[in-house]
């Protein structure tokens, strides 16, 4: 097998799931190593980038959070556009959030491209006493739908890095289906010859 240690790829990763399932908390734990017990509904920042160095490749994640647009089922199609991976999150202390997670899985299957990597994540695993959704239930549903499954806790950081490493590894293995567009930036000092350059 040919191996290219310098392979680098950029991947859009989207988070889905009910309000309060812990989408933003998972990302903040991964990106900033922080956890806040009373994370506000997502305001001000819903786009994170994080670089992950694996043996196989360097993966630059563009992580999209829902910005609350899931609340009234008004998530825009652009959210799914070009996504390489999707994380569907539910809260183990809420059966409702698990039922809704199944709807999100179907929505991703409908909207996103077929090569997308999808993971089902059971969050708030630290709240074992209040558990309403068993590990087996989650695992079984994931299996039926060909998804990877992980139980996480953004609070204790359990499985959070593992989650993103797992996605990174899968993407590094998969053939990259890379867009050829350009991004406009306002930062100075990126000029390379011309003011604009197209991929």
């Amino acid at each position, binding site marked *: 097998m040919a191996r290219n240690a310098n392979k680098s790829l*950029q991947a859009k990763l989207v988070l889905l799931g009910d309000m309060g399932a812990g989408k933003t908390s998972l990302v903040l734990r991964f990106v900033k190593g922080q956890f806040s017990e009373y994370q506000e509904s997502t305001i001000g920042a819903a*786009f994170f980038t994080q670089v992950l160095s694996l043996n196989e490749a360097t993966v630059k994640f563009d992580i999209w959070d829902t910005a609350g647009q899931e609340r009234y089922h008004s998530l825009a199609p*652009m959210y799914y*556009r070009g996504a390489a991976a999707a994380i569907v999150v539910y809260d183990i202390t809420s059966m409702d959030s698990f039922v809704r997670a199944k709807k999100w899985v179907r929505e991703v299957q409908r909207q996103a491209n077929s090569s997308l990597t999808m993971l089902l994540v059971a969050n708030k695993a630290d709240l074992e006493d209040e558990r309403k959704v068993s590990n087996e239930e989650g695992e079984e549903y994931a299996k039926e739908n060909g998804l990877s499954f992980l139980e996480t806790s953004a609070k204790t950081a359990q499985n959070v890095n593992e989650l993103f490493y797992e996605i990174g590894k899968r993407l590094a293995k998969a053939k990259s289906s890379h*867009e050829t567009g350009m*991004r406009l*930036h306002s930062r100075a000092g990126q000029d390379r010859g011309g*003011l*604009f350059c*197209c991929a």
Partner: protein
Amino acid sequence: MDEEYDVIVLGTGLKECILSGLLSVDGLKVLHMDRNDYYGGESTSLNLNQLWKRFRGDDKPPAQLGASRDYNIDMNPKFIMANGNLVRVLIHTDVTKYLSFKAVDGSFVFNKGKVHKVPSNDMEALKSPLMGLFEKRRARKFFIFVQNYIENDPKTHEGMDLTRVTTKELIAKYGLDYNTIDFIGHALALHREDNYLSEPALDTVKRMKLYAESLARFQGGSPYIYPLYGLGELPQAFARLSAVYGGTYMLNKPECKVEFDEGGKVVGVTSEGETAKCKKVVCDPSYLPGKVRKVGRVARAIAIMSHPIPSTDDSHSVQIILPQKQLNRNSDMYLFCCSYTHNVAPKGKFIAFVSTEAETDQPAIELKPGIDLLGPVDEIFFDIYDRYEPVNEPSLDNCFISTSYDATTHFESTVDDVLNMYTLITGKVIDLSVDLSAASAAEE
């Protein structure tokens, strides 16, 4: 819904979404609703099934056109000037991170029955078959004057005050003939009518500079860029900006009835029996039909093709302007084509649009000069829509209504309307003087 908002925005067209985003960033509490179950309103991009539903009723699209979801067909096709106001707004709001763009391959003009590449600088002008040899020399001199012209540096003004000298007088000074003036005015300065000739030349010179500076951002081709997956991405990106800053989004809300008090001031919006209170309403003309008047109609054709437009150097994305005089019309006609290279159609397919300010009730006949340039088409659709502008007094009723999109193939007039509305709503002026010279585009 039973909360009080600073602003309720109705309709998720591009103008409404930019305003929603700007107002949320300002810290205002915004509720944004749309009667449709999709984003974009009149500036959405349709997939093939949606297109057929809109124009062909119950018929199904033929299988050889490919998968419906591979199509993103703009309902309001326009290109983005690389150095224009929309790019400034995109950078100002940092919405660019949600979007990917590609340069548009070509910019052409219809002149004396033929399609020509638009020369935009002195070197291109020398090569262009649009002009004879002597005319080229004169045009080159004029282009050099425009390129060197700096508004606040009198040394570059060659002794002329362009706030007083008319375009006609300026062009006369360089001895340019009628055909040259026609393509400069319509294809470079992007004027829609000929009254620019009797107006101060400064506006035309600035427009030419915008064109040239936009063009200079690329390795040739055109001054335009266009987002991957179509223009429908733009309202979605600004809606996301608004949501990120706390804006609440509700699609598929029927009715959206604007409520007023006895004094005629807006007090809220009712949908499905619930009323959300607000201080101000921002909307497109369709939500307040009693406060707008019809100002014109746009005739357009949408074609699906399997080849680029002939005579455009195999351009996979292109604009062709057909100036009014070349067609003996009162308004210019615009051709716009994009393709699978911008992810708006499956591999090998092209989407072309022909549009103009309607002067008759028969778009198929009226648009013929443009359609004749397309060559064979797989499918073609014709349409006429009305354009509206507000007639209310926002200071009295607190309703801020956008003007319908015009037939132009770029966004300059769209952004002007948005910026004016923003100032009316907030009393503030947006400083869009972002340092575009420091802006760059990175490979993804």
